[in-house]
């Protein structure tokens, strides 16, 4: 293998036959082998960690969510069509529905990454390994694939490459992808039926992958977030959703964001490896509880009277807090800034949920908004630090 690579390497070097594909070749080579480059300046030894390792750690942390999501897609389909499926049938159905999402996300995203790296003459950045893993988990399973492809292209090109690639972007590309879907195709993406696999197709064509006897009588398809928004805890109970269901994740919703347990496994991996900031996660939870608790005191609507901790397990809050808000590039960079940033993410999420009747999922908007303000938070944290230093020096 190594010999083969060494043999074909010269034709991909500058001036070689395939010189224009240098970045592509380099990406595949460094994917297969840690390169033989040695330190030239500065420190002669370097830590064995690199960005590939960090990205793969996040991917591993996402695996529980993805696996649970695959099963849950089958499970929800089973419920909707009253099919009495066994475990493996549900997994197989979910696999067939989720796999195309992954194929589309990775093919479109990586193609754009490779082309832009080629144009710039850079190495291909591994950032999209994570974005590509995230995107299928935060979209509804019934999203048309062509829409997903356009959304991924939009997110990668306008969200990342125009700023200079991974490390330079302002907004989280995966969230931008979801935001694009929701605001560009509101007629397709809103409503209650998109969240359960196969239902959209059944309603339009009269067929589904496994339509069985048609939709079950009790099927509503609405996510618990909608029930909670309309009726608070009572609304959830009326829809047959218990607090435990929300924790385990046997509810309709975006593919990977329903199970709090799977997300917590991922959170443990991320915090333990130090890849994601626990400060952001914790402060986001505190922020959500603070606003939620305040609304509990005020009361008024059933949603506002719903205990604050329900917000933590509803909708995309847990997933967003653990995997999206903590993106090291788009979150706040300073340690104090991370506390402020996380708190505001949590607080804004609940605010949007409770005070915006048109749009129930606040997490995406809250994170994108805070992504925008993260540099501002950092700016003030640093200004404060500089003036503190100046004062300290005066005393000394």
């Amino acid at each position, binding site marked *: *293998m*190594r010999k083969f690579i060494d043999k074909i390497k010269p034709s991909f070097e500058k001036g070689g036959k395939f010189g224009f594909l240098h970045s592509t070749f380099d990406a595949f080579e*460094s994917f*297969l*082998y*840690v*390169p*033989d*480059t*040695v*330190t*030239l*300046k*500065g*420190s*002669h*030894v*370097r*830590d*064995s*960690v*690199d*960005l*590939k*390792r*960090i990205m*793969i*750690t996040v991917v591993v942390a996402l695996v529980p969510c993805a696996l649970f999501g695959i099963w849950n897609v089958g499970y929800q389909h089973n419920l909707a069509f009253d099919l009495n499926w066994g475990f493996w049938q549900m997994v197989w159905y979910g696999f067939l529905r989720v796999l195309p999402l992954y194929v589309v996300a990775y093919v479109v995203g990586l193609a754009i990454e490779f082309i832009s790296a080629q144009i710039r003459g850079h*190495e291909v*950045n591994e*950032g999209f390994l994570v974005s590509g893993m995230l995107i299928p988990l935060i979209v509804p399973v019934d999203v048309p694939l062509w829409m997903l492809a356009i959304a991924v292209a939009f997110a990668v090109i306008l969200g990342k490459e125009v700023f*200079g*690639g*991974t*490390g*330079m972007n302002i907004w989280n590309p995966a969230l931008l992808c979801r935001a694009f879907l929701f605001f560009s195709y509101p007629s397709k993406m809103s409503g209650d039926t998109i969240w359960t696999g196969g239902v959209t197709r059944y309603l339009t064509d009269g067929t589904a992958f496994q339509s069985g006897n048609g939709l079950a009588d009790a099927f509503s398809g609405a996510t618990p977030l909608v029930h909670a928004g309309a009726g608070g805890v009572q609304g959830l109970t009326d829809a047959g959703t218990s607090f435990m269901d929300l924790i385990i994740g046997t509810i309709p919703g975006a593919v990977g964001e329903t199970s709090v347990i799977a997300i917590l496994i991922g959170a443990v991996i991320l915090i*333990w*490896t*130090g*890849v994601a*900031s626990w400060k952001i996660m914790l402060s986001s939870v505190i922020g959500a509880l603070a606003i939620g608790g305040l609304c509990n005191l005020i009361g008024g609507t059933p949603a506002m009277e719903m205990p604050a901790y329900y917000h933590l397990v509803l909708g995309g809050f847990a997933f967003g807090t653990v995997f999206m808000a903590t993106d*090291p*590039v788009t*979150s706040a*960079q*300073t*340690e104090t800034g991370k506390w402020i940033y996380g708190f505001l993410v949590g607080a804004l999420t609940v605010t949007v949920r409770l005070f915006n009747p048109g749009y129930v999922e606040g997490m995406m908007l809250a994170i994108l908004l805070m992504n925008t303000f993260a540099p501002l938070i950092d700016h003030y944290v*640093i200004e404060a*630090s*500089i003036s*503190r*230093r100046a004062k*300290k*020096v005066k005393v*000394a």
Partner: protein
Amino acid sequence: MSNNIDLKRGLDIPITGTAAQKTKKVVKPDVVAVKPTDFRGLLPRLLVREGDKVLAGSPVLADKKSPEILFTSPVSGTVTEIVRGEKRKLLEVRIKADESQEYVDFGSRKVAGMSTGEIKEVLLKSGLWPAFIQRPYGIIADPEIRPKAIFVSAFTTAPLAASTEYAFRDEMNYIQTAVDAISKLTDGGVHVSLNSSNYSGTPFHKLENVTFHVFSGKHPAGNVGVQIHHISPIRKGETVWTVSPLMLAAIGKLFVTGKYDMSRLVAVTGPEADDPCYVQGIAGMQMDSIADFRKDKGAEVRFISGDVLTGSNTGEHGFLGFYDNQVTLIEEGNKFEMLGWAKPVRSSLFSFSHTYFSWLTPNKKYNMDTNLHGGPRAFVMSDVYGKVLPMDIYPVYLVKACLAGDIDKMEKFGIYEVLEEDLALCEYVCPSKIEIQSILSDGIDLMMKEMA
């Protein structure tokens, strides 16, 4: 002990090859080199020609900007070669040592009776003035300036660095003499930092005429820059000087014996050093004289004058630096590793991050090599740098300001307080493999140009 400054952040790099506390041999100098590249920003003027005879202490180079600063030969012998690089930049003046060494006599004198001017004059003439490093910027001290204070770090935390207790155990009286002399050059006194772990055990504890400070923590707690940051941060417009124990010993010898004696105990260390220990060497000695330490495996070995974080790659026939009393031998890591980054466990490699499992074996030492372990990327991770820098500055912002060449921001983010060595660990842990030290170097060069 009451005012111990405990530095929580840092990292001791677990690399094999600590020098055993024994002196294996005395290196008889053969060819030695005086290297202008050891000194930042120096514009050298050559004072000798090939074939000239010199004594130990005879001037070889002078500073073009302040011609009274001389650089002298550490041995007596003949100038054999003047090595120049690109654009005829002067790299080395090589001197072949004589069989027996003769020294220029600078006169043995009692420091107590000397005036500041006389002390300065002797130091400048003898070639020991460059022992003083001036901060900000880490340049050779300006003899016209009276610094705020002079700082000495009497312990070292750098990877595999020579133990100050062992290397200077016979030279404490010289160091005391030097302290007495240099305390006349400043009004702020001489500040010596000790390590809390052997606070009362180290011979430096007995020094007089100094102010002590006590630090504890991992590397870079032993860096004088980090210590100054916690003792008395450098304001804009202020200058402080630093001097190493090694240079203090040389200064002491100069005043006691009247000789420019640059001999020193050199720690030969690193994973590729066989039986790592100390040798009695001299500044500018050639690496060939310690070639017998090299493990004979046919591997390509990098000879580093200094430690693995900040030393310079001299090549196997290179020369020991002016300020260095350590040589590190490590293997060149020019090998591919299949799917290395994806392997769950790479037990032969250390990582500061928990993405590998080296945190399970905290006492293990590793045979590190020079592989970069990845490709260069943009800054992504924001919190790893702060974890190894016990200073109240934002390293990423400082480095970005250097990249942008923004003088105003560099100043705000603390460029006056740091040198490359202080951020070396940030470079080590950087998952994006950014050359932080070299970026900071360029930033400092820019500052010197713009602020001059």
